[in-house]
């Protein structure tokens, strides 16, 4: 029977649900000119949630509601960074939304509902909570993508996302039902014990394959990546930035829960499957990105390749690999937020700043914006001494230690191929002449520009001082 202790363990999530409902009500009764208040309130709500997650963190992993919900170190790290990224997204998105008359309270409430989904997903201790957390996240995302309903591109992206997402959920559920059939339990901890000596190992592996397909869909790993470019390009940039940041942490959390907490004993089966997904993602992501002319689409293919690197860490199937993959997920979430944040800051009403050519001669118009963008591109490409370099180094190391030397070599080769298209953006900004008659500069008030600069400079600082963060990632998998 659930008791008060269960509720205390769930406090951050319950608080966020209550806050989201209050914001929804507040929005309904608010006058249009008071609406900016909602923006600051939403950011405050997220920051308080971070405090609740860190402050109430138990020293030992605890479970609530009969093992349905797990609160451990992994979930803490993922929740803190998911909340932080969402708060950054809110800061960057406001000028963009206001310019395009998309500044509605539902953007904030739906995003917070999505974050609740992320938090439930990364804390799931049962196949049911994994599925429900995932649905909570994706349903909110579908609505966010369709937010700009007068745009045909946006509606198309939402429909594609919805149909493929529903397909992925179906695959995942099918796999889960097979696993349930083979082991007779939905609880991940008990599944871990039962997986070793089931009478139907083939059924279990069959279920595992479908679950991996579901995970790959959500990560956006090739060959299940088809939705990523269209959704990234079609959604309003203020939504793309959200979809490209915090949910990646959730996808890592989901993969960790299902593969390690649930089916860790089958790692010799899923290691090779993940390795294949990783190679395909690296190849498709990096090679197709070369021919892109749309910046958002380019970043979408870059996401696919980054998910390939994340999978390199998971392939290790040990604490070292999980720590490297978690570190990679965090670094990607921060880099993705920064990259889309700059696009948001450069865009204004009637000018989306979506094409790579829009950035021509940015250095002459706005040297600071060009410098920030250059740092982000170098970090995404993995140029030392930036954050992205160490994240890549650690996953490659994890793959080598797991005996996948060939995979690490593939990863390194594609990192060099990928360097080309990131450098192309830098070249356009610094060496091309600006197009006459256009104007491009950082929009938004000083606070937005300050937060954006801090976010990008953090990539540089973390490149030098990545030790403590990686130490945190390592600690949560050791205990």
């Amino acid at each position: 029977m659930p008791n008060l202790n269960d509720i205390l363990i769930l406090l951050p999530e319950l608080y966020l649900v209550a806050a989201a409902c209050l914001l929804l009500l507040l929005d309904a009764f608010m006058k249009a000119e008071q609406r900016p208040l909602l923006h600051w309130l939403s950011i405050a709500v997220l920051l308080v949630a971070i405090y609740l997650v860190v402050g109430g963190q138990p020293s030992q992993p605890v479970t609530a509601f009969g093992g349905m919900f797990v609160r451990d170190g992994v979930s803490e790290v993922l929740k803190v960074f998911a909340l932080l990224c969402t708060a950054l997204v809110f800061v960057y998105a406001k000028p963009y939304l206001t310019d395009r008359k998309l500044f509605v309270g539902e953007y904030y409430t739906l995003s917070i509902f999505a974050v609740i989904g992320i938090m439930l997903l990364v804390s799931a201790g049962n196949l049911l909570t994994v599925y429900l957390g995932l649905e909570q996240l994706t349903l909110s995302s579908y609505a966010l993508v369709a937010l700009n309903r007068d745009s045909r591109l946006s509606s198309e992206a939402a429909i594609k996302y919805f149909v493929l997402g529903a397909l992925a959920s179906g695959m995942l559920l099918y796999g889960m039902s097979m696993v349930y059939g083979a082991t007779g339990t939905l609880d991940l901890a008990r599944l871990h014990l039962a997986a070793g000596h089931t009478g139907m190992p083939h059924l279990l592996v069959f279920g595992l394959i479908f679950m991996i397909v579901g995970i790959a869909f959500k990560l956006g790993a090739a060959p299940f990546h088809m939705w990523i470019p269209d959704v990234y390009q079609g959604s309003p940039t203020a939504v793309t930035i959200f979809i490209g940041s915090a949910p990646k942490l959730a996808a890592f959390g989901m993969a960790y829960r299902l593969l390690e907490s649930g089916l860790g004993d089958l790692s010799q089966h899923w290691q090779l499957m993940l390795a294949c997904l990783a190679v395909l993602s690296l190849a498709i992501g990096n090679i197709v990105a070369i021919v892109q002319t749309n910046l958002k689409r380019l970043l979408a293919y870059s996401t696919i390749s980054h998910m390939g690197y994340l999978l390199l860490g998971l392939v290790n199937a040990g604490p070292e690999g999980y720590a490297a993959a978690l570190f990679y997920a965090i670094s990607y979430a921060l880099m993705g937020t920064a990259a889309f944040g700059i696009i948001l800051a450069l865009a204004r009403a009637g000018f989306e700043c979506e094409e790579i050519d829009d950035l021509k001669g940015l250095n002459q118009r706005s040297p600071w914006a060009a410098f920030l963008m250059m740092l982000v591109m170098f970090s995404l490409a993995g140029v030392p001494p930036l954050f992205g370099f160490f994240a890549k180094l650690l996953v490659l190391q994890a793959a080598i230690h797991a005996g996948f030397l060939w995979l690490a070599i593939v990863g390194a080769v594609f990192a060099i191929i990928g360097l080309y298209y990131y450098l192309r953006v830098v070249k356009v900004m610094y060496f091309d002449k600006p197009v006459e008659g256009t104007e491009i500069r950082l929009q938004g008030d000083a606070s937005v520009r300050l937060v954006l600069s801090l976010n990008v400079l953090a990539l540089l600082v973390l490149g030098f001082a990545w030790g403590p963060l990686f130490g945190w990632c390592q600690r949560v998998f050791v205990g």
Partner: protein
Amino acid sequence: MIDPQMFQLVCFYAFAAVTVVAALGVITLRNTVHAVLSLVLTFFSTACIWLLAEAEFLAIALIVVYVGAVMVLFLFVVMMLDINQERLREGFIKFLPVGIIVALVMLGEMLALIGVRAMHEAVMGANPATVAGMSNTEWLGHALYTQFLLPFEIAALILTVGVVAAVVLTLRHRTGVRHQQASQQVRVQPASRIRVVKMAAEVPAAPQPEAGKETTP
């Protein structure tokens, strides 16, 4: 005499086959009405499978809610899409064969279920509801509100997201549209609707109609 266990297995595979074929029909049939009818059959066969597994409450809920309410609504919408009385009447004859086939398959499935039930009650596996000495519905309620409380609440949260999403995607504030303002209607004062006018009880007879004195202001 047929082996009851065997019969149950045969029934399961038959129901499963009907479900899969009907589900394929939903996505391949070109005629939308046929597709919806096919969906009805899918739900019905799924309910039959659940009855085989002794999940009576879920099976009945599926029939009542999905087949009874949602699907009929679907059919209404699909048939209303092309409002043409002539074609609707034609449609009745055209859709009749498919409707009859769906109904016949459903009848067959029901008869098979009755057969399973009549043959043997002990064939069915250990049922947690029977073990606990409760009816299926009672046991489901217990499980939902104790063991599965958290998933149940998350499901409620997902429905909330659905409501918010539906509102944000469909609600449009159009300008220049005439509509009632309930708050103003409620707040209205008698003075703004009628005007009490004082006038003499009797109007003196006017000698000439053209020079009649106007009393109302």
